[in-house]
């Protein structure tokens, strides 16, 4: 057969092979890349960096620990060691011999032990067989039984053998041990010396970045064994994250990068310094129990190290800034129970910077974050420049709160509370939202108060109070009258007359706005009552009036100034709201009252506010006619004439028509509207328009207005605003499309709109109409939210609250204030906040806004922080109902107002205070009558301590005690005869013992100072006993004691002494007090108000329409 001729290949083989080689190599390389990318994760770089930091620290500590002294000791020990070894070497033969025998015995023991254990194993197996045979009634039961017994014997035998062997082996061991005794002992000592270093070294091995084992443990493909770099997570089974289809437990992996979040010692310098000062103060006041003092000082040293470190620790490696409050294991929110995302939000399981939902505080921050050191490369961030290659995560429903809004996280658990301990900022923010009345226009479900009053005064009687002219100017621009007012500005805002509005439209808008204001005023005055208030019954003296206003406590709720001295520049400038504590905005600013109202109204109002408006929040200060007249004349002297100079443009008929028609054609045809309008006078049109305008702007949400009873508030509901998705917010023309992010705020500052929800809300409250910029909308469609002229900080506060209102629901177990006691306390706090008690009193260490206005701290209203422990419920109840029942410090000028609490309210307050003080409602011991001898001893101690120098014990009529000579009121203290009926039995003694710890800065001197070392009490009388000046008392006391020693002992015992004093005071106390009468002086005239139903009238639609 002939050979087949070769068929040529289509491609040259060499070329194919070459390609094959190359592509395969390429494949290999790419596979490498794949593995590498899978291995190199961002968080690993963070952990490496953190390890590096730790390594540095440990090395530093090692350097200090491993000092000359220790090396010397070690050297000495080594010497001894060598000596010991020589010792052994000298009796070498015996030693070796002993060693040999030991080894033999070890061998035997091993064998014997094994035999025993095996035999035992057999026995157990056999036992089963026997049992099985027994139950199954098998024939071989007997044989099995026999074998079992045999085995049992065998096991016992072997056990005996084993015991023998063990004994002999131990003997051998002991013999060898004798030789080595010294050496081993030395080794022990060495260990104790080097213990610290060994520990550090152990830690070092774990964190050493470049150490061999770690490199292997963390090597790619091998890191499944036990890598030092691994993801840390907390699983929170009762805190759920809403995945829309289901809610799954949170798994917070934040620690993976935030390594030191719960580890003290990695604070920022500033933070460290803050903590240092706190801690030092605690130590000074020795408020730490001696047992924990050592550890505290340890901590101080640590903090000092951090504060003085040359390099500040940067995030993500910082300790949580409030470890005592969050994350710390001793804190109320330990990491293992609360994790991170439940407060901060963000993606719990994410381990990438952007994915985790970090949100920048500002544009600058965002830009910095976005930069990346190496493109296409995961990790190795630039720590110094804070470049993380950040990408915003558009799909995350719950991005983190930017840092300035962190407190928003508190709301969902604490919103029900009035005072969140340690949450001053969020407390203030929540209170601010109520004071400024956000809740009035915006429905907020499950807010802490269900019965909040409308923030504005009732306008039913506006005509009695002021004039249309004033009202017009006021509505037009309230801030022009009072820079600190809470009333927002509705008109002439940026979307109506702002620079962005084209001139023609602006002119038209102004016409419309004028018309609307006119119409509102017309409506209000048309609907207003006109009760003739009688003129002041006495001639007033403005000077005296001013004194009264300043002294009797009006200033707790009212500000009487509209300029302040700037702290920084020292120049006098127009006052801003946040120049004053929130409490002082409770009542309106008194400046310009004269311009605003008339003397008759003021007189009757200050005398009895409820006469004008049964819901008026203002309490009665029980003014006499003369006082009322004085105050009236003072208030009337507060004039702002220039305000009334501002021109009022007459309403533009055309504009009124158009607007009115605009509303009418909603319900009728254009033609009908025309005809109808033709029939209406301008006034009628205005009134019609006024009603609609009030509806449009929602005036009725904040003010009671006739004809608008029971209408729904107009604002967007905010119940879950915080979890609304970003695309539901209308950014107007702010954003990337138009490349505009900045705008100039009314007050001239430049503001910035980030494309995030927090930023949207912030700018919304800061400048509510800003999102209308450059938009062309019909007049009535323009944004209507009024402008409160919030300062940036105020705006941040409000934003914080709004962000906190989320749809997340937290497990009951994790909610705050759940126990009945806490609830009771909260109920009390609610009233305290609603009645603005903090205007004058300190409650829970906060408040007393009035303090700055009363020169002498001795004339301040009392600190109510310990009220619960201090006073008895019945007394407190009575006193709240009618403060005149007992004047404890009659020389005080500040008056406790009559709030006209209902019984139930008073009861709530009393319970609240008791709960705050961890006290039972009623103090049974007050009825206990002290033994006579205690009283006598108490009496003597009483004048030994010279209590009578300030306290009188003469029983007096509680309701009106003699007004003492106020000239030396300095040295006055409450009359002790009130104590028995007012104070709690146990508290009284404790108070005498340590007044300063109950109320810091109290006038009551500390008679039993604490011993700095032990923290125990010292008694001044201990030594006094011997001094001649007390000879008489000593003589008097001795009969009551076994001997002088006993006497001295008692006199040195603060507890005993204070109890004696208490018993004495109890013995002089009075037993009855006047009952709370009907508090209110009869109002000056029979009031039409009385006939009217005080319950809100139902909305009657038809009355509103015709």
């Amino acid at each position, binding site marked *: 057969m002939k050979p087949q001729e070769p068929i040529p290949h289509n491609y040259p083989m060499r070329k194919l092979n070459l390609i094959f080689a190359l592509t395969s190599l*390429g*494949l290999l390389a790419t596979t490498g890349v794949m593995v590498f990318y899978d291995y190199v994760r961002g968080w690993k770089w963070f952990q490496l960096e953190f390890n590096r930091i730790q390594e540095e620290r440990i090395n530093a500590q090692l350097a200090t620990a491993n000092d000359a002294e220790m090396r010397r000791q070690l050297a000495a020990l080594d010497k001894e060691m060598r000596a010991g070894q020589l010792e052994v070497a000298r009796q070498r033969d015996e030693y070796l011999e002993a060693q040999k025998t030991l080894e033999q015995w070890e061998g035997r023991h091993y064998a014997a032990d094994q035999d025993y254990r095996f035999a035992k194993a057999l026995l157990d197996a056999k036992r089963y067989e026997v049992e099985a045979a027994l139950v199954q009634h098998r024939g071989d039961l007997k044989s099995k039984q026999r074998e079992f017994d045999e085995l049992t014997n065998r096991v016992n035998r072997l056990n005996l053998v084993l015991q023998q062997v063990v004994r002999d082996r131990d003997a051998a061991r002991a013999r060898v041990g004798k030789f080595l005794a010294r050496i081993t002992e030395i080794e022990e000592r060495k260990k104790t010396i080097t213990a610290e270093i060994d520990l550090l070294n152990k830690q070092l091995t774990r964190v050493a970045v470049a150490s061999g084992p770690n490199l292997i443990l963390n090597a790619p493909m091998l890191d499944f064994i036990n890598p030092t770099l691994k993801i840390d997570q907390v699983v929170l089974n009762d805190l759920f994250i809403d995945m829309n289809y289901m809610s799954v437990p949170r798994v917070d992996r934040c620690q993976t990068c935030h390594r030191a979040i719960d580890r003290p010692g990695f604070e920022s310098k500033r933070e460290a310094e803050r903590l240092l000062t706190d801690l030092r103060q605690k130590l000074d006041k020795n408020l730490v129990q001696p047992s924990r003092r050592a550890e505290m000082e340890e901590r101080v040293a640590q903090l000092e190290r951090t504060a003085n470190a040359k390099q500040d620790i940067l995030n993500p490696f910082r300790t949580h800034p409030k470890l005592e409050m969050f994350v710390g294991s001793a804190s109320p929110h330990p990491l293992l129970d609360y994790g991170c995302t439940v407060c901060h939000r963000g993606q719990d399981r994410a381990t990438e910077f952007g994915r985790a939902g970090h949100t920048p505080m500002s544009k600058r921050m965002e830009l910095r974050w976005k930069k990346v050191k190496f493109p296409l490369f995961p990790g190795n961030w630039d720590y110094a420049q804070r470049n993380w290659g950040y990408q915003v995560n558009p799909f995350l429903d719950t991005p983190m709160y930017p840092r300035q809004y962190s407190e928003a996280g508190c709301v969902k658990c604490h919103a029900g509370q009035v005072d969140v301990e340690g949450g001053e900022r969020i407390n203030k923010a929540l209170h601010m939202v109520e004071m400024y009345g956000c809740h009035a226009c915006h429905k907020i479900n499950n807010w802490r108060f269900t019965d909040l009053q409308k923030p504005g005064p009732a306008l039913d009687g506006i005509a009695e109070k002021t004039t249309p002219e004033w009202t017009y100017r006021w509505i037009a621009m309230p801030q022009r009258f009072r820079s600190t007012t809470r009333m927002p500005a509705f008109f002439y805002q940026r979307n109506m007359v702002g620079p962005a509005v084209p001139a023609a439209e602006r002119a038209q808008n102004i016409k419309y706005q004028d018309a609307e204001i006119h119409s509102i005023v017309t409506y209000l005055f048309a609907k207003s009552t006109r009760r003739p208030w009688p003129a002041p019954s006495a001639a007033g003296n403005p000077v005296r009036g001013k004194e009264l206003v300043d002294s009797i406590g009006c200033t707790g709720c009212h500000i009487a100034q509209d300029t302040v001295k700037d702290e920084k520049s020292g120049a006098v400038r127009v006052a801003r709201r946040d120049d004053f504590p929130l409490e002082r905005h409770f009542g309106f600013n008194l400046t310009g009252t004269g311009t605003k109202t008339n003397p008759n109204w003021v007189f009757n109002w200050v005398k009895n506010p409820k006469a004008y408006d049964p819901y008026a929040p203002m309490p009665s200060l029980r003014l006499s006619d003369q006082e009322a007249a004085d105050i009236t004349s003072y208030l009337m002297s507060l004039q702002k004439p220039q305000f009334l100079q501002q021109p009022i443009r007459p309403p533009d008929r055309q504009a009124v028509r158009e607007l009115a028609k605009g509303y009418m054609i909603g319900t009728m045809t254009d033609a009908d509207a025309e005809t109808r309008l033709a029939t209406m006078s301008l006034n009628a049109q205005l009134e019609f328009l006024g009603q609609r305008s009030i509806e449009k702007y929602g005036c009725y949400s904040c003010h009671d207005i006739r004809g608008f009873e029971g209408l729904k508030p107009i604002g967007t509901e905010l119940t879950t605003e915080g979890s609304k998705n970003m695309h539901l917010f209308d950014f107007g023309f702010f954003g990337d499309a138009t490349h505009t992010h900045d705008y100039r705020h009314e007050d001239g500052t430049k503001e910035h709109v980030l494309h995030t929800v927090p930023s949207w809300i912030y700018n919304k409250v800061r400048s509510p109409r800003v999102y209308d910029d450059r938009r062309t909308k019909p007049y009535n469609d323009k944004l209507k939210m009024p402008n409160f002229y919030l300062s940036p900080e105020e705006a941040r506060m409000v934003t914080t609250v709004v962000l906190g209102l989320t749809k997340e629901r937290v497990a009951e177990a994790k909610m705050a204030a759940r126990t009945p006691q806490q609830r009771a306390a909260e109920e009390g706090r609610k009233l305290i906040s609603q009645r603005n008690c903090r205007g004058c009193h300190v409650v829970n260490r906060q408040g007393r806004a009035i303090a700055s206005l009363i020169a002498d701290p001795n004339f301040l209203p009392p600190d109510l922080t310990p009220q619960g422990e201090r006073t008895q419920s019945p007394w407190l109840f009575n006193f709240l109902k009618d403060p005149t029942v007992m004047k404890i410090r009659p020389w005080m000028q500040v008056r406790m107002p009559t709030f006209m609490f209902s019984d139930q309210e008073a009861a709530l307050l009393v319970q609240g205070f008791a709960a705050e003080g961890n006290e039972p409602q009623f103090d049974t011991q007050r009825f206990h009558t002290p033994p006579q001898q205690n009283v006598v001893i108490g009496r003597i101690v009483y004048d030994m301590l010279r209590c009578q120098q300030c306290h009188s014990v003469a029983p007096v009529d509680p309701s009106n005690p003699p007004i003492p000579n106020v000239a030396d009121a300095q040295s006055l203290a409450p009359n002790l005869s009130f104590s028995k009926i007012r104070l709690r039995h146990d508290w009284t003694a404790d108070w005498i013992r340590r007044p300063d710890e109950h109320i810091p800065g109290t006038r009551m001197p500390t008679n039993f100072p604490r011993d700095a070392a032990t923290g125990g009490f010292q008694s001044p009388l201990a030594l006094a006993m011997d001094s001649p000046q007390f000879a008489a008392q000593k003589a008097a006391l001795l009969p009551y004691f076994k001997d002088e020693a006993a006497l001295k002992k008692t006199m040195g015992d603060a507890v005993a002494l204070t109890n004696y004093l208490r018993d004495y005071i109890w013995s002089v106390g009075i037993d009855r007090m006047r009952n709370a009468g009907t508090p209110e002086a009869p109002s000056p005239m029979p009031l039409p108000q009385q006939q009217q139903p005080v319950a809100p009238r139902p909305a009657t639609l038809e009355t509103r329409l015709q």
Partner: protein
Amino acid sequence: MTFIKNFVNVLSIASISFIFLSAVFFMVCYFNLMNGRLKDKTGIAFTVFGVICLIAGIWVTPLLYLGVAYLLVMWGLAKLGGRLWDGKVGKWMLIVGVIGFGLSLLDPNFYSIAAKPDNVPIAAMIFLLGIFTWIALKKAYYNDQAILAGGIPYEKTESDEKLFTWPDLVYTELLCMIGLTVVMIVWSVGLRAPLEEAANPTTSPNPAKAPWYFLGLQEMLVYFDPWLAGVVLPTLIIVGLMAIPYIDTNPKGNGYYSFRERKWEVGVFLYGFLVLWSFLIITGTFLRGPNWSFYGPYEYWDPNKLEPLVNIDLSELFWVKMLAMPLPKLWLIREAPGLILVLLYLGLAPALAKGPFRRFYLKMGAARYYVGAYLFLTMLSLPIKMVLRWLFNLKYLVHIQEIFLNI
């Protein structure tokens, strides 16, 4: 620069670009495959169309743009004629395309869309489609020329040579495999797979887009009732593809590329595949933005952009607009005009069988002819519906809520 961008933006409006593309398709068929001339009848017809566009452009600006672009391209294609398939020309077209794409990437808006990881394959697809279609047509063209010259197609010439499976086939396949794997890995590492958070039913992404291979369907939904676009048409597409071998009995072109010998087969398929399917996918990917409204390639995807909803049904058009009378209550009467039109459309098949398509009918026989014809009509219904939409804002021809039948 901005002018060019605007030009492209306008040109890529769904209607304009669709017309433009279809036109180009036909022009290529005519001028470059069938050696048509500008002078002859069809050529003049083409020109006239362009001129009409220009004139209409006086009132409707986009049409002006269209006209200009159209005439330029026409002139170019006509000038090139067969030389379009010349390797050098092909290379240049590719280069120009790539450069154009590259330059467009400099535009932030274009970049943000084109560089989106999920869109990269589509961008690649544009070029691949172009290249391979070009190659195929090139071969077809040369074969046709050869046949015209009385020769035989290139494939025939080499078809009697022999090669070993190994190495010539398997080895090369292996190499391709490896190469492909490398590309895949690099790709998937290079642009990280775009994984997203857990879906939130209350907030669907805007625009909500189907996977790229279904974007054609999604685009159809704009013009058809979901039931048709989502169920009937896709089914028919698949059935149709399966049916092709049984319908197409043309023995010519087996084993070699050719256009002249199978104008209809190739033409119809290419039109369906390129213009009615791939083009829609590309549109859906790059030109459909938030609210599924239309954005030019250089336009910013502004979610606030609104498109007026003024589409009306034929019934409204007929009764209300033309006869100025209320819609009849009875749906049969109300929808009569639409139904009649649809029936007429369906009637086209037999009609054509008697008329112009007589020879197909004879050649294929009744069964084959009708199946093919109806598939063809259904396919054609898409562009027709589109054009109707663009011309009259027509929503549905037949709109019977009573029985959920919308056509």
